């Protein structure tokens, strides 16, 4: 147990002295920046300066007189990525704060917002996406969520530790160091029912206990945070790392204390430069403030974190490959046993948790295991963040209590399918998971219940597909991903997935043969049984679930050479309905190979010999004149 005599409770070094009259928060996650948040921020700075009324006060600078000035905060992602760039504007009138959120803000919109809202006092109603006073349909996005993991994302400046501390940050670590024994910490985490959010769903507390009980030859143990988020369509870890890095550090330090490790690694894929940058800033600040490093908060517990950048291999998300990568080897999974808890990094007992799991830890310590366990369903407790993407109206990050149905998530939070198209399937858990059809949407978000359907909770990716998505092609896409990312070590994964991919490829090309479905099923079964690690062990899942729930589409491809979604280029012919065609030339301009001919205002036609079946004309036509069969 830590020596508590000198324990210092973390306090913000620079508390906010006063509340500025106008506070502007701009989402500066990767999604926000990609949508142009940096230019929006500059536009606000310049625009406010021109008003000569609202001088910009940096939040931690002390020259702010109450009731004057404005502040601009670059926050992390708040999840509603479909509406980026998101800008919060908070105004104070008569001691009442009022916040509205503008969506899809561009620099051109900023002048009007400043003029009408900030100076004029009247929000620009048509651009509001969220507001307590005037709810929009988007309010639903948050109403069904419960944000524990994402509690600070979008609200704190991730590059300012004082913001985190002001929100109660590092108090959980303080609590642990000021009187909890390692065993008590582990008990608390066990009691919370938290299970690994990286996908496997193994009880976190149990993992910690194994690592705690393991003997190290020289006393050294390691605590690793796995930030190698690689599933296509999953970005919750990135958002946490970008938006709330200290929560992860705090979780790691608590875990390090629990298992008896003084060294930690956080392994982040190099494709997340913003996360890495913010982690570095945060780590430096945490050291400066004495909440990380030697003798944390004056206790005798020391914990040092190193940030390790991955080099682009999906398989490094597998824990043994990840450790190999930290050691400087090519990331290739090793056999287990020995499990990392016995012999992990540098052959020492090692614990590895995912980012989201660790971000739960401070909340659990601060609010108690019971509060966490009170949420959830059956054996799945707490909340889980899902990354909603695909053909859905409100793509973004949704944190929901375990036990919601998929339908709740997709329709209530996600707002249903884009353009009013028909729902076809949802791919759960990325390339290791599988797809579920409409009739399975009442399945609860629960490890066991989802497992029983053939899909997994996984990292929480939910890719929604509509009638235009071909299920065979989608299965092929995910398998292509895992095949390309196979480390090459074991034969079933390296060669088996390639053979599956070839079969799927020929089915999509209309060259499928009788018996191909059976070959796929047999390959899948053997690959699952024979592979060394979970990458190979789960790689066939998208194909298996696709066959399980959409077998008729495979059969259509094979026997009728038909792709009902029109996605398999080889099985589609585009033609123009002469009656509907207005001769607007939109299609011929869109065609990359000049396959469409026709005079202006005359009916056009497609030369199917030249056509490469890209579908560009189909997308462009506003008169439903381009058809496919």
């Amino acid at each position: 147990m830590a020596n508590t005599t000198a324990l210092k409770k973390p306090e913000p070094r620079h508390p906010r002295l006063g509340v500025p009259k106008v506070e502007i928060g701009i989402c500066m996650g990767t999604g926000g920046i990609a949508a142009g948040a940096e230019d929006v921020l500059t536009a606000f700075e310049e625009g406010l300066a021109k008003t000569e009324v609202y001088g910009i006060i940096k939040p931690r600078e002390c020259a702010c007189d109450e009731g004057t000035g404005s502040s601009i905060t670059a926050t992390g992602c708040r999840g509603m990525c479909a509406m980026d760039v998101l800008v919060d504007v908070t105004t104070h009138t008569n001691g009442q704060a009022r916040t509205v959120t503008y969506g899809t803000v561009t620099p051109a919109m900023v002048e009007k917002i400043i003029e009408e809202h900030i100076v004029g006092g009247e929000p620009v109603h048509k651009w509001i996406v969220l507001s307590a006073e005037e709810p929009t349909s988007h309010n639903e996005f948050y109403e069904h969520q419960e944000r524990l993991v994402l509690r600070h994302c979008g609200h704190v400046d991730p590059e300012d530790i004082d913001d985190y501390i002001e929100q109660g940050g590092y108090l959980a670590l303080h609590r642990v160091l000021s009187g909890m024994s390692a065993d008590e910490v582990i008990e608390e985490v066990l009691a919370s029912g938290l299970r690994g959010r990286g996908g496997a769903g193994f009880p976190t507390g149990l993992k910690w206990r194994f690592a705690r009980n393991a003997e190290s030859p020289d006393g050294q143990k390691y605590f690793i945070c796995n930030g190698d988020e690689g599933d296509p369509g999953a970005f919750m870890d990135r958002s946490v790392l970008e938006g709330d890095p200290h929560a992860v550090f705090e979780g790691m330090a608590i875990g390090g204390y629990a298992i008896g490790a003084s060294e930690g690694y956080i392994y982040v894929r190099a494709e997340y430069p913003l996360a890495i940058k913010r982690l570095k800033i945060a780590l430096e600040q945490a050291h400066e403030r004495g909440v990380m490093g030697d003798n944390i908060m004056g206790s005798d517990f020391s914990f040092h974190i190193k940030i390790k950048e991955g080099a682009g291999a999906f398989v490094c998300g597998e824990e043994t490959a990840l450790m190999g990568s930290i050691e400087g080897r090519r990331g290739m999974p090793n056999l287990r046993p020995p499990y990392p808890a016995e012999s992990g990094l540098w052959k020492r007992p090692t614990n590895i948790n995912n980012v989201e799991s660790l971000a739960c830890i401070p909340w659990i310590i601060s609010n108690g295991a019971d509060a966490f366990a009170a949420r959830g369903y059956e054996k799945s407790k707490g909340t889980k963040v899902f990354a909603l993407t695909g053909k859905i109206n409100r793509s973004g990050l949704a944190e929901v209590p375990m036990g919601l149905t998929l339908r709740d998530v997709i329709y209530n939070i996600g707002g249903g399918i884009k353009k009013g198209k028909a729902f076809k399937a949802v791919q759960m858990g990325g390339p290791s998971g599988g797809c579920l059809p409409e009739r399975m949407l009442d399945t609860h978000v629960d490890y066991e219940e989802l497992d029983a359907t053939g899909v997994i909770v996984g990292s929480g990716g939910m890719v929604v597909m509509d009638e235009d998505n071909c299920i065979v092609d989608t299965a092929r896409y995910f398998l292509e991903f895992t095949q390309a990312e196979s480390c090459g070590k074991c034969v079933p994964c390296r060669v088996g997935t390639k053979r599956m991919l070839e079969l799927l490829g020929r089915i999509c090309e209309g060259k499928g043969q009788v018996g191909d479905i059976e070959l796929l099923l047999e390959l899948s079964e053997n690959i699952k049984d024979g592979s060394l690690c979970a990458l190979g062990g789960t790689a066939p899942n998208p194909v298996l679930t696709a066959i399980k729930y959409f077998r008729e589409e495979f059969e259509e491809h094979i026997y009728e050479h038909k792709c009902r979604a029109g996605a398999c280029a080889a099985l589609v012919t585009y033609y123009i309905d002469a009656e509907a065609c207005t001769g607007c030339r939109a299609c011929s301009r869109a065609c990359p190979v000049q396959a469409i001919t026709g005079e202006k205002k005359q009916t056009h036609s497609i030369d199917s010999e030249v056509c490469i079946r890209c579908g560009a004309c189909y997308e462009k036509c506003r008169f439903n004149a381009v058809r496919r069969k």
Partner: protein
Amino acid sequence: MAAVPETEEKTLTLTINGQEVTASPGQTVLEAARSVGVEIPTLCHDPRLEPYGACRLCLVEIEGARAPMPACAAKVNDGMVIHTNTDKVRKLRKFVIELLLSYHPLDCPVCEAAGDCRLQDYAYEYGVSESPWGWHPLDFPTRDDHPNVARNPNRCILCGRCVRICREVMGIGCWGFSNRGYDTIIDTPYNMRLEEVDCVSCGQCISTCPVGALNMKRSRHEARHWQVNKTVTTCGYCAVGCEQLMSTFRGRLVRVSGKIGEGVNNGNLCVKGRFGMDYVNSTERLTVPLVRNEAGELAPASWDAALARAAEGLAAAKKSGGKSIAVLASARCTNEENYLLQKMARTVLGTPHIDSGARLGQAAAVAGLRSTLGYGAMSNSIADIAQSDVIFVIGANVTEDHPVLGLQVIRALRGGARVIVAEPRRTDIAKRATAHLALNPGTDAALLSGMMRHILDSGLENKAFIAEHTDGLEALRESLSGLTVEAAAEACGIPAADIRDAAEVYAGAASASILFAAGVTQQEQGFTNVQALADLALLTGNLGRPGTGVNALSGQANAQGACDMGALPDLLPGYRALDDAEAVKQVESVWGSRIADKNPGKTVTEVLDAIEADEIKAMYVVGENPVLSDAGQERVRAALKKLGFLVVQELFLSETGELADVVLPAASIVEREGTFTNTERRVQRVRRALDPVADSMPDWQIIQMLARRLGASWEYPSPQEVFAEIARAVPQYAGMSYERLEEGGLQWPCESADDEGTAVLYADGFPEGKASFAPVNYVPPSLQTDTAYPIMLLTGCERVHCSTGTRSSRAPGLTGLINRGRLEVNPNDAEPLGLASGSMARVTSEVGTIGAEVWVTPQVPPGVAFLPIHFVDAAANTLLPARADAVVKTPALKAVPVRIEVAG
């Protein structure tokens, strides 16, 4: 002596396919299964490597486990119930084979591996003739750019064995995985040529490849695996004594391999052992005897004529007394041959002047260790080096000169052991070491004195061990009193702190071993250096346990055996003294003949003086090449020319043979039977894999014929009978016989038929009761650099060649890698001299001049140069003055001051 605690080995009981099996903790399921003859297929498994589990062929079902487990990695547990051949695992295995055959080419008719290919075996066993998903061959370019390694990535099954053996066993890492997914291939870094990526050409990657992706390039299309005859024998190069498997076909050696998991080498071989044996196929081999004719030329002659001439010449010399003949035996010949030769010298020729090539190093080690510890040999075993916590390597370029023994040091390093290397050059092992003490040449005794002084000053000595097991500490202490650690550091040219650190690390280890070789012995103080090493081990109690010891690494394959056999001027077989009447009597009774002269004879070093003084008039040289190996080439040549009569017995017409009156063609080591004694005292069989080339004959047979011509009544039908006599004459070999040596050999002392041999000497005490500390008085080398000769030239071996190159320079598998000696010069010295890599330099010492190609490299420190000894075109011994250790007369071959200039 700390008794080795009798740990009761716990055993586990498990069930494999219904059969109850006993196993030990830590064993894998695969090991337990194979131990009872249950075969489980594997592709990525090699017992030399850590479990990998990639090929998925060895999956077995273990009751209670969720999924099939790889037998190569799963550890046994008590009560485990294992099924190795269920439908489920057979189905998975077949699946894996089908997947591999979905791209692996079926070019078995032209594949080198056919007949020795695991994939072929398993496809046959599991009846896989084609894959259900068609055949999708790969299309990678094949690569042939290494002289000995051919590579066909299209056959590769990515088991990673080549990658792992290079990294885990060799400690290098030439191979790695490139790309991901189906595009994964095995490649060198950045697809560079093997020779550019630290490859030591050991061929270990080829040895472990289970298919035909890596092949021995030089033996392609020579013979199929089922066509060859296979013979297990012992390597004739260095003294590690690796077990080799010789494959021969139609009277030619086709290829050499190791048997994985067997022999002292555990199946590993080095570049010489694997690629260096094709000298036996050389067209330069001597095929008939040569006799110098009246025109003064060596001309072919019949055996009868040649033997008659040889006998006549020796008999003529004998007339002026046996002492006028000297005999030089060979550390490259078998025990039987050395034994017969010394017996012939002592009883037939009647001369005491019998010595061997072991004089060039091992003799000093033997004498130094005998005088302190009792036995003149490596105290411990090769296998227990890796158990050391600390390994002190001094004057031994282990990873190059004893490459397979060096693997134990690499293994120890990988396991966390600390390795301290004392060596002027930055050798391979120095680069890998925890600490490198780059001492000045010839200052080893100063370093060791400094270390011992620090141990004694700091009270780090093992007082209990010293009290119980040693005598003479005070004399040692007294001798060290004259030299402070600072003075030692000054002499060695290294910081005093480094000496202290090394002393503390060595003394503080739970078990520390010393490895030394010719770098220590080929000096004016060679004998003292060896004694000092024995002192150091005694001082700290590092003897008698695995992982400890003073381990003299002998150079030539049978340097230890030559000494054991009494090919020494002062000792009879079994190291028995000539003045020990009892011993002499016993030897004479075994021999049935009298030892003519019981005075100690002359060492080979002294023989040269005696020739110059007209005392020795004839010489019989077997398998040695003193013109290139002994100090001062011109002097040696002149002395041998001065002889009235010289008989040389060799494989090739060596530089020494060219001076002979009679040259007798000897069979190579793969053409005869016998035994070698390796550096760890292990007596191992040498077996005949080929018939002797043309009219050549095994040395033992030639010696016997010549002895008979000179009047002996010897009738040894084969080396086996000679060995039986050795067992009677050499007490340490008393318990040995060819039958007992059949499997893996025995380590001496092995004194009775039920004696299992001795892996660790002194485990039960010292032969004399107590070991003796020897005083150590460091004397600086007599030759120092000066303005005329400002650079200290070191000589030694390099990885690819061996001794004077008689054999290695005629092995295309080696000359294709390196065929010339390169003078290593430090950049600081090279620049002012105007020398660049590849340019020619003239090297001059006070006794000679040679030309050599320059290699500018920081591997040698400033002021020091290095030249390998193997090449006649740049013969290092030309430069060496005749100086030797005062006690044992081992010549100081290691260092000489020289001047280096641009040639031309």
